[in-house]
């Protein structure tokens, strides 16, 4: 069976046959034969040619974080993502929106609706864990909406300022 997985933003197409305690995977350049045991909800023990790979897994939404030997990978089912995200307001193109790079608290709004702004103009100041970051205008335009106020807790998916592009 074919799986399309997104591994840290990179699309990987693999073929896998999965049974109760066994997975055979054909990737682009290797064939793996792995035994597996689910140790807990968050831990999978893989055995490949007698070698042990101990994987820790957590999931939030469709993405799973898999940590192996101290390295972590963000993995999601690419097909699943495309479908579920198609209905939502997409925030994929981070270069063209005004959003906090991390969960943060808004500490200042530097513009108001109707203001003309040039690319690079500071719009919003957010603070997280004692670190302040200024969010800049991604292009020239006019502020058509401000969706946050000082004190608000905001997430990276939230668009804080709407700009009508010139």
């Amino acid at each position, binding site marked *: 069976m074919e799986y399309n997985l997104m591994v*840290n933003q990179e699309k990987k197409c693999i073929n896998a046959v999965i049974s109760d305690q066994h997975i055979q995977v054909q990737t682009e350049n290797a064939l793996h034969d792995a035994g597996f045991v689910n140790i807990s909800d968050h831990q999978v023990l893989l055995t490949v040619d007698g070698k042990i790979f101990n994987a820790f897994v957590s999931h939030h939404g469709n993405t799973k974080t898999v940590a192996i030997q101290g*390295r972590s990978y963000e993995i999601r089912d690419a097909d*699943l993502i495309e479908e579920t995200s198609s209905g939502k307001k997409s925030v994929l193109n981070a270069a063209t929106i005004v959003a906090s790079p991390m*969960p*943060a608290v808004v500490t200042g709004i530097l513009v108001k609706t109707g203001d003309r702004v040039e690319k690079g103009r500071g719009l919003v100041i957010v603070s*997280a*864990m004692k670190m302040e970051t200024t969010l800049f205008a991604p292009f020239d335009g006019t502020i058509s909406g401000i969706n946050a106020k000082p004190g608000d807790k905001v997430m990276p998916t939230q668009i804080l300022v709407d700009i009508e592009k010139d």
Partner: protein
Amino acid sequence: MFKKILIANRGEIALRVIHTCREMGIKTVAVYSDADKKAAHVISSDEAVYLGPSEPSLSYLNMDAVIAAAKKTRADAIHPGYGFLSENHEFARRCRDEDLVFIGPAPGVIKNLGDKITSRNIMIGGGVPVIPGLSRSEPDMAVLKEAAKKIGYPILVKATAGGGGKGIRIVHGPEEMEQAVTEASSEAFNAFGNREVYIEKFFTRARHIEFQILADQYGHTIHLYERECSIQRRHQKIIEETPSLALTPELREEMGNAAVKAAKSAHYENAGTVEFLLDEENRFYFLEINTRLQVEHPVTEITTGVDLVRLQIEIAAGRELSLRQSDIRPRGHAIECRIYAEDPEKDFFPSPGTIRFMKEPDGPGIRIDSGIYQGFEVPVDYDPILSKLIVHAGTRDEAVGKMIKALQDYIILGVKTPVELMTDILNSEPFRTGQVFTDFITTHFSDWKPDRDLADMAMIAFLAHSRGNIEKRGRTSSEPGKTVSPWDTLGNWKL
């Protein structure tokens, strides 16, 4: 001895103090804000008092609320931890006025050492080497430039108040001086309400070496050797160790004596840290005294066998320090890695969130000072430190081996941490050979990306985990024997 201590802090350092208090049979009072209702330090204390909203100025920095909490719970003393009110001389004075023992030095000492020019002059008076510079605020630009010329460029323009990297400019030649002074002065005024700046020599390649000191009320002052803290990001330490590879036994003794002299000159009492810059020619200069417990104090504890918090409490309670300098005999090598909620791939941006899964390393020679637990929501409101991982072994090589293993075994899912970066730092040639300077991260790891060579295994684990969880749901479903097919739930698999 105190019966009850209020800990005016949160996170791992509050827990660190709770540990020792409980061992001493002293009751603890935690304080907390809205964001910290379920925080680990609250869970682990004997009593807890709500201070106010998450915003630090309304809770952990709110002196009235903290003192009221101590009064209400009849605490004898307040341990301030680090950060927040720990180096606030006004708070220390208010504690004293309210008949609460502030576990730290006297208010006047905190005040003097908090002002860079005052402390610099105290050190000069005590014969402790300071960085070549001007020990006064100088408004006349001509005089300033003349002094700078004598000292030699590059020059650091530095605010006399505050800290945290604010009000600081590097000046490479006289033509940059005027603008730098104006900017630093204005930034300092905005941040600390004080325009005063002074100048000193700037060292491009230096080590940050500090000495732990202990002083009681009876004039006994000792040092507990050094900590090498040169590995920093955004002017904040992330990896510390002891002993420092840079010190010869002679230099170590000389610096230790200077640290004791510095503490005595400032009439220091309780635990503190004397920070030095060590230049490439192995000349050392006084930087400042931190008048509190340091984040990295565990490497000193683990090599000297001393419980610094216990001694802080005993000293504050008026006990005489029974340790003499000759009793302090560090053993082996210790390293600490600070585990922050931040993303080293994205310029160390903070990464608050929920700890979805956590597994700590265990075994010999490993210590963890932690402020989190699985399920805890790391708030955006405070410092991003989650925990500290400390290892102790016979030699530096053994300690490095132990730390790498421990980092690999330290699983924190849900927030980003620099654990992978730290593994690579410890494995790197410059770290292995002790070539650590304050520019270490920018020089060697500015474009760091993790090595993702186990992606195939990760994908297999992804599939196995999905399969396993389906199996499990199948087993607990109402119809025994019937298992949900993975294909029903595992996305849009194509045949």
